[in-house]
């Protein structure tokens, strides 16, 4: 059953444009009712702090399996911080601390006895700026496979990953060439190939297309759509149209202010993408998606 958007009254230009976009995209997405979706992440009361100062406060939300979940919001609202909590990447930052729980398939990954290496094995990440290793294209994908013990049928796995990342045709004749000889868009797709080659459960994407041109961007968005059945994607994006295009669920974060200039991010609303863009419950969400601020 296709979810469809009600044609909204013509408020302003931006709203109706997004309506149209969402309506177009809605045909591609069939969102079952919430109760039937499998939860892969359960975040409860998450606070993330740098040097004691909160960056993100009191986030509670569930991420569902095999969906694309977008995190949107103005810059500085802690989207990247939040997503990095999901795979314990913030451990690498010295002054970082967090409270609250994050359950992954029911297991609390913030617990002391959980090995971040194991967490990251299952929850991969693609970063904002492409960061291929200074190795050949082949080795960029193969290195992770070798280290993690997936050495069998290496060539096959590399080809499959590059194909899924929509990069195989462009590089199949020069696998030994340095990864740094690729263009930015190709490098980012290589990073995606590298991440999915090791068959994680979830792929986190921190503004993966922000440094790329529109063509490369749409290649990546198509990729997410095609691979949704095998992986769960969580994507941070500052581009609302991108969220509207690719995401099934959208979480809107906003900046709250406190005394003495303190600022932190809070989860304002988390709904299906349709609802966020056509009928948001919170005024802040509405202001943001209609372009009134942020």
């Amino acid at each position: 059953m296709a979810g469809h958007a009600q044609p909204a009254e013509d408020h302003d230009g931006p709203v109706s444009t997004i309506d149209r976009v969402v309506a177009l995209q809605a045909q591609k997405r069939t969102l079952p009712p919430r109760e039937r979706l499998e939860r892969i992440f359960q975040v409860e009361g998450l606070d993330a702090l740098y040097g004691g100062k909160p960056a993100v406060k009191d986030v509670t939300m569930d991420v569902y399996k095999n969906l694309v979940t977008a995190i949107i919001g103005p810059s500085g609202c802690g989207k990247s911080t939040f997503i990095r909590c999901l795979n314990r990447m913030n451990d690498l930052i010295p002054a970082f601390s967090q409270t609250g729980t994050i359950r992954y398939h029911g297991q609390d990954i913030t617990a002391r006895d959980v090995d971040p290496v194991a967490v990251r094995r299952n929850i991969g990440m693609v970063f904002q700026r492409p960061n291929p290793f200074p190795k050949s294209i082949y080795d960029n994908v193969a290195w992770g496979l070798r280290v993690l013990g997936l050495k069998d049928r290496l060539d096959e796995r590399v080809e499959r990953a590059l194909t899924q990342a929509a990069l195989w045709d462009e590089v199949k004749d020069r696998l030994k060439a340095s990864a740094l000889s690729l263009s930015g868009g190709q490098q980012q797709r290589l990073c995606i190939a590298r991440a999915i080659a090791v068959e994680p459960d979830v792929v986190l994407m921190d503004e993966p297309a922000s440094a790329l041109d529109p063509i490369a961007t749409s290649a990546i968005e198509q990729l997410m759509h095609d691979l949704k059945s095998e992986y769960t994607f969580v994507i941070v994006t500052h581009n609302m149209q991108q969220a509207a295009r690719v995401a099934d669920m959208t979480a809107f974060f906003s900046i709250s202010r406190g005394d003495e200039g303190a600022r932190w991010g809070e989860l304002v609303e988390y709904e299906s993408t349709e609802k966020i863009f056509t009928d948001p419950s919170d005024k802040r969400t509405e202001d943001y998606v209609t372009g009134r601020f942020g």
Partner: protein
Amino acid sequence: MSTHNLTKAALRAEGLPRRRAMNRLMELVAWLAAALAIGILVVMVWSVARRGAGALNLDLITKTPVQFNFGNAPSGLSNAFAGTLVIVGLATAMALPVGILVAIYLNEFARPWIRSSVSLALDVLNGVPAIVIGIFVFGLFVVGHGQSGYAGAFALACLMLPLVARSTLEVLALVPASLREASLALGVPRWRTTLSIVLPQTLGGIVTGTVLAVARVAGETAPLLFTTSIVGTQLHWDPHHALQTVPVAIFELSESANPADHAQAWAAALVLLLFILCTNLTARWLATRSRRKITTAR
């Protein structure tokens, strides 16, 4: 296949315990290596301190050495300390102005190709072994004229020059172009700008660099062996003749068979080590202070 269970049992199939063990092993190796380095340092300094403190007394700097001291005549190394003071002082007087001028030339006046050639020359000079500098100065000044404090000082100055030039160059480069431009825009001539505006900004860095160079050169023995080592036991301060120096004295005493000589060597080594460690600490403290000044000024 991806695993969802993060407990140890489920991950055994993937070899994670083995990989974790390897990780821990390498961590251990790194910790041990660091401990080893620090251990060596501690052992060395402790040896010098323990053995040197025993023989450390005022005689060391007030009495001259007594050859063939089979009795217990008070003996010291006053000539060596005097010589080191004179020679290191002379070396600094030779190297400092030249080093600063070279740095000024490279930073303010030199065209790129000149700058890279002179820099290369300085780097090469820095890489010449100290013993080779010693026989160079020997061939230049000592042959035919005999050893002298001046020759020794010149040898040390050759070692100091690249150090002073490099550290001065570093701080000169830190002076923002806007400062120079402001001065020049007021009509102040170039030479005045350099000397009165730019140079004073760099004084802290120059002092630090010089202090470090002095510390480095005060302990050098090799350049002095061929230039100022054949000395008597009297105390004198005239650089026209060869002067005894602390490092050479330690060197000679260390090769002797007499344990009393060894004790004196330890004492002198302790004084030398203390001097070098203190000057290094001072230079480091000066450097952090001036860095803080620059960053807060910005």
